[in-house]
């Protein structure tokens, strides 16, 4: 799982860099036009962090090693992103790290627990719930879908794919929503008809995770 997540972080950094302008354009419409810039800066810092990390301590369990890199990524986001998305994504990663550190019957189960923990962490810190036109509208359905796929006996690749599919659907669903959290809420009715930048970046992160875990053993 450690290697898969490391690859994920690097791949996500590359994709966020490509998508930065598009994410920023979404944020210009209903926010302050920096979401792509913020995410690009944060994941660029994660790559730098990964490059600087000492080789994996062989003594560490797979779970501990995984939790370690995810926690480091979360701290990096908190220290480099700023804005609303920095603390929110950073907390999501810290919660996910704690979740994967625990014992799990399978790596698929670990992934589901991590996504659920991330969703809960964001909701708690942001005092938000689904339907408010935020990243939660991508992550919460993703957690639900992943859990369902796991209960149906799915493996890592399938639970993560289920999460990615649900996140993208959730991101689409933010378009008609009236924002009641974050900057977009200042627009009131005028927030309707625009896709939420954070939900979009969340879906991008989960799709990337699906691509990575689908192509290689979790």
């Amino acid at each position, binding site marked *: 799982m450690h290697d898969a997540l490391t690859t994920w972080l690097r791949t996500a950094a590359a994709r966020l860099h490509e998508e930065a302008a598009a994410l*920023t354009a979404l944020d*210009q*419409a*209903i*926010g*302050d*036009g*920096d979401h792509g*810039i*913020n995410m690009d*800066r944060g994941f660029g810092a994660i790559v730098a962090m990964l490059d600087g990390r000492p080789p994996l301590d062989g003594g560490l369990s797979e779970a501990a090693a995984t939790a370690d890199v995810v926690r480091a990524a979360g701290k990096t986001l*908190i*220290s*480099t*992103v*700023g*804005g*609303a*998305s*920095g*603390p*929110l994504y950073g907390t999501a990663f810290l919660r996910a790290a704690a979740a994967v550190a625990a014992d799990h019957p399978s790596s698929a189960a670990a992934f589901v627990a991590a996504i659920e923990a991330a969703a809960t962490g964001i909701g708690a*810190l*942001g005092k938000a719930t689904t339907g408010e036109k935020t990243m939660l509208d991508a992550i919460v359905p993703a957690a639900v879908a992943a859990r369902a796929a796991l209960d149906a006996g799915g493996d890592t690749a399938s639970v993560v794919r289920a999460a990615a599919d649900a996140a993208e659907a959730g991101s689409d669903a933010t378009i008609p929503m*009236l924002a*009641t*959290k*974050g*900057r977009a*809420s*200042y*627009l*009131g009715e*005028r927030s309707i008809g625009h896709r939420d930048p954070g939900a979009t970046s969340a879906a991008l992160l989960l799709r990337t995770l699906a691509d990575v875990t689908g192509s290689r053993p979790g």
Partner: protein
Amino acid sequence: MATNAPTAMKKLINRVEDLVPESLAGLAAAHPDLVTIDAPNQVVLRAGGPRRGKVALISGGGSGHEPLHGGFVGLGMLDAACAGNVFTSPVPDQMEAATRAVDGGAGVLHIVKNYTGDVLNFQMAAELVAGEIEVSSVVTNDDVAVQDSLYTAGRRGVGVTVLLEKIAGAAAEAGASLVDVTATAVKVNANGRSMGLALTSCIVPAAGTPTFELGPDEVEVGIGIHGEPGRRREKLAPVDDMAEWLVSPIVSDLGLGRGDSVLAFVNGMGGTPLIELYTAFNSVARILGGQGISIGRSLVGSYITSLEMAGFSVTLLRLDDELVRLWDAPVHTPALRWGV
């Protein structure tokens, strides 16, 4: 006919990523007697280190609002200001570093503008020093363009932040305790309201394009200070009318009436020259005078800006003797100075 909203980025900058650090370096180079810079943390510190026994005031937020906040560091105002990237709140590490740098043993007040990002990052910073340094926070939320309801992130913190930093800073300089300085800050926020409008958008350097588009005869009413689009669009109108759009909601929200005295603050958004700001102040004074509201104190200038955005905001603060005394107290910062 095109609008005069900037569509091509023309700024006095080197590389986009150098803008904030170089601007901070310029601030320090111009005011070495007043401020020093913690460059790695992008924190503006009051020269001379922490003041023993004085409550320290910290603020911060995204850059692009200059002189807010770094220009308000100095005697009688802030002890430190944390500069985030343009329109992006600073990160907890910066507020942690600032809090540790300025603590003089009497505690630290965090002055936070009400935006999700600012609130969350300051909150995390406070957690990082919890148990070591006594921190209290005040969140400004004076923008009446946003309803303070379950359906929004709450009113934004705008113009009142400037007045609060001055007034709470004076209380701290006078030796008030953290509890009392916080109470004064809360009082300012409770008695002040603001609203603004934009004649043009602004361009976030890293984005390179205008945050919103406005027609040549359009005005964006109810904007914040981050180029967020406002609540509604109006046709360009005489400044008397535009001032009315901003003053009326403030007066009714504050419940101001005949006999009240206010501090009237007409603020430029960054690209509007003083000849227009004084014209706008003239309109505001006429409107208030017509309602029997007297202007006890005033401030006219570009103090909380949105990069090069053209437009203005009005902030009214209900005055009493205490607030007038604290407002008049000496202040010596790069952007506000009197009595010294």
